[in-house]
């Protein structure tokens, strides 16, 4: 089938798509967006998390045929040109990235959390990231990154406010 889907704000089209392939495969192999990672392929690890109609989902569990005429936003669509999103910046600064495989999914999940809950408590952060597995960091640096991003978003750099969340 031919799939028409808006990806990161741009209308995209892919031909000869098999309905049974995943949205993840469509993004990575047909549309050239390898940011979303293919790990468990079972919805267990969250590495493939993308926004589908503004809601984070595991793209490995969405059949490509189901995204016709819908909107997808991937980790590639979070930055504003060369300017990283505050969540991405915080992941870099807090040392929340080691091998990096889980990072795109965690960045999207954390981005969504801070959209919904700008100042999350630690239990809220833990629960929101429960569907994203990381085998390197032990999660502590990831929690640091989310706290830092929350602080940055509340008081953007250059606003003159104190950056209490940076270490």
């Amino acid at each position, binding site marked *: *089938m031919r799939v028409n889907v808006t990806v990161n704000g741009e209308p995209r089209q892919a031909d000869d798509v*098999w*309905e*049974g392939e*995943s949205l993840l495969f469509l993004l990575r192999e047909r549309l050239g967006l390898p940011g979303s990672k293919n790990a468990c*392929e*079972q*919805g267990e690890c*969250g590495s493939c*998390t993308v926004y*589908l109609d503004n*809601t*984070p*989902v*595991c793209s*490995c*569990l*969405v*059949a490509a*045929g*189901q995204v016709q005429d819908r909107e997808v936003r991937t980790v590639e669509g979070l930055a504003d040109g060369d300017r990283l999103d505050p969540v991405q910046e915080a992941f870099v600064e807090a040392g929340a990235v080691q091998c990096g495989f889980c990072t795109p999914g965690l960045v999207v*999940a954390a981005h*969504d959390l801070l959209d919904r809950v700008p100042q999350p408590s630690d239990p809220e952060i*833990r*629960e*929101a990231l*429960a*569907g*994203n597995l990381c085998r390197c960091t032990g999660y502590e640096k990831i929690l640091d990154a989310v706290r830092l991003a929350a602080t940055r978003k509340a008081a953007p750099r250059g606003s003159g406010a104190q950056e209490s969340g940076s270490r």
Partner: protein
Amino acid sequence: MIPFDYRLAPDVDGAVAAATGWGGVAFLAGGTNLVDHMKLGVAAPEVLVDISRLPLDAVEELPDGGLRIGATVRNSDLAAHPAVRRDYPVLARALLSGASGQVRNLATTGGNLLQRTRCAYFQDLSTPCNKREPGTGCSAIGGYTRQHAILGASAHCVATHPSDMAVAMAALDAQVTVLGTSGRRVIPLVELHRLPGDEPHRDTVLSPSDLITAVELPPLPEGTRSLYRKVRDRASYAFALVSVAAVLRVEDGVVRDVRIALGGVAHKPWRARRAEDVLRGSPVDGSPADEEVFRRAAEAELAGAAPLAGNGFKVPLARNTVVSALRGLSREER
């Protein structure tokens, strides 16, 4: 994954028509269990009928105070619905204790009811399983049984139903509306799922072309409280070892209405009628003396438990979880 035919259902009747007459057919909604099983080779439908765009995604408050939940309402939307949070906290809590945010954002009401067991042997094509391949035997019996059933199992299957949502709905006396080739019918949720018996490959009483269109919750009388308590091996994103959905109404120090369902212990959400019988009419005043009644009720239900080699702990765990759930409800501020 083997090739299959994909059809987008044009409307609700058309979905049933498109699914009729095929040997291997499945409705596709959120896909969180089906797409996964197709990749593993556990499911291999010839035809997928995509129902995710049908207008079955509304939650309606009914004139009698009940709630009608469309089959394709997402788990996260249902958990966040104001009427669910206000009137059926047991359901909101059960939904939020299941899976992860990403999965709840895709998973639907109908699909949650029809999800299949997470028995590791069922998902592993290299091991015999009567549910996956009838007549091949059960690898769990004599195998690793920490997650398996203690109630209502058979010599052919000891799998558990994995849903949290369905356990809450069982305690709420939910009714499931089904559209099939011979029309519409309503099935009490507690009769939707089967015990394994000698046909463990049949999870429910539905036929493959039966489409769940809605779940209705009857209203709860004023003064009714409810909660969901789930015990699992880690704090989040794990299936229940034991869970308890409890609905309680105490008036003038006497239990007037009580409904309890257990998860993680059987092939279906387990309605604990024996425990309810013990509790109904019993005096309950929020004092430590209540504990004895709660314990007797739980023990009455669990008298028929038949634990396996690896899950004997579930019997006292289920008892204690029932007691603590009832304690929590009976001591809430009035």
